């Protein structure tokens, strides 16, 4: 399996390490339901059979975290974005990252 790192180009998946579902976002610890939210964030996974967004880290390359859109049934990768861009866009959805 090969992943197109936006910084380094296409590389074998052995250069990357995997974290998992990118749809779970670290909750606000000061929110009243923080314990539930953190439980869901840390443990509950939709574990989709199909296209899913997930976090990969280019460990043997540029050390960028990436949001990779990949189909878990076929391993086909349709999109790769720097995680920081995705995270910034998430924080301020109006001014999307370039």
């Amino acid at each position, binding site marked *: *399996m090969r992943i197109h790192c936006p910084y380094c180009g296409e590389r*074998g998946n052995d250069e990357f390490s995997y974290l998992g579902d990118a749809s779970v976002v670290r909750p606000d610890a000061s929110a009243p339901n923080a314990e539930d939210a953190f439980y869901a964030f840390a*443990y*509950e996974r939709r574990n989709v*059979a199909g296209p899913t967004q*997930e976090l990969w880290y280019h460990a043997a390359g540029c050390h960028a975290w990436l949001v990779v859109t990949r189909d878990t049934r076929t391993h086909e990768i349709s999109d790769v974005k720097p995680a920081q861009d995705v995270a910034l866009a998430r924080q301020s959805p109006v001014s999307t990252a370039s």
Partner: protein
Amino acid sequence: MLNSDRYSIFSVLAEALRGQTGWKPVWRQAAPKPSYDIVIVGGGGHGLATAYYLAKRYGNANIAVVEKGWIGSGNVGRNTTIVRSNYLLPGNIPFYETSMKLWEGLEQDLNYNAMVSQRGVLNLFHSDGQRDAYARRGNAMRLHGVDSELLDLDAVRKMYPWLNYENARFPIKGALIQRRGGTVRHDAVAWGYARGADRLGVDIIENAEVTGFRIENGKIGGVETTRGFIGANKVGLAVAGNSSRAAALAGLTLPIESHVLQAFVSEGIKPFIDGVVTFGAGHFYISQSDKGGLVFGGDIDGYNSYAQRGNLPVVEDVLEGGMALMPRIGRVRLLRSWGGIMDMSMDGSPIIDRTPIDGLYFNGGWCYGGFKATPASGLCFAHLLARDEPHEVAKAYRLDRFRTGHMIDEKGMGNQPNLH
């Protein structure tokens, strides 16, 4: 005439004389009835064992096992066949030891030879720290009454004189051995339980994929399948690998990810590996089958997958471990590699519990330790389904343990499934 439905050397000889024409199907090809007391989803090892023990020990045979393909098509027929109970934590040891004891009597219980072979599981260690960790584990096992021995280097050499001792990157220092551990012919486990359950009246329904659950007022009423609706008072899920997909049909989200684990077998060669050997400085474990193939495996690929196949980096990683430990296998050839989908739970340990839906029960999260657990998993799930309370040795396997902070984390890797 001799009853060929009772397997023995006598029935085999009698059938030899009449051209093997008297054997009956190992299990009936049952058609679904409108309803059952209990429907078990998943005709793998765990589902079939559950049905068998429900019928045999809990006296309830009004059961159907529904399987989307052919029985045993999942991980029961895709693993490296190892059985052992060399666990560390009190939540796990009694359960896996229960399984070990069931393995020890399985063939006589089922009247089916699954070739349970207790030729020992040897875990090599390569550092002082690893030795101490294995001592802790071995002592925990002994406190639970489970056999375990710490071997020094000389004792390991005596057992396996041809391992790489002289030219190793991480020299072998000794090993923890569980002599009662070993291997079992994997497919035969599914067939043996299927036959046992079938003879007690359980309906095994193949090619019936569950497409939904009928849930009314928070209570289960049955399952929708590709072969029609089947009513049930209770439904038990035993579909590890696909647990999340099945649970999603009931609106549940689980602390589980699906990952691919590859396994490997070499061409058949004259046996020279007696028991199971695991490398302590890499991901590699190996045994040799009664057919002569070296059966081995390593780490999961590390990314979520439902594809039942993996990629080359892990193949190479596994063989690097193999050639680090036993360089004499260099000219032996790999015959076949394959992949299975593992229910990787968030702490590396399984779940056998009720769900928030009344009458819906869950069995899964086996990570890559599901095969050895098959008998106890079946027994404990049967107990839960029959009695509505957890079996004594499976009490720790609660679904809510992550919420309460009672994780059973053997490896200490935390909430990252691909590291367990």
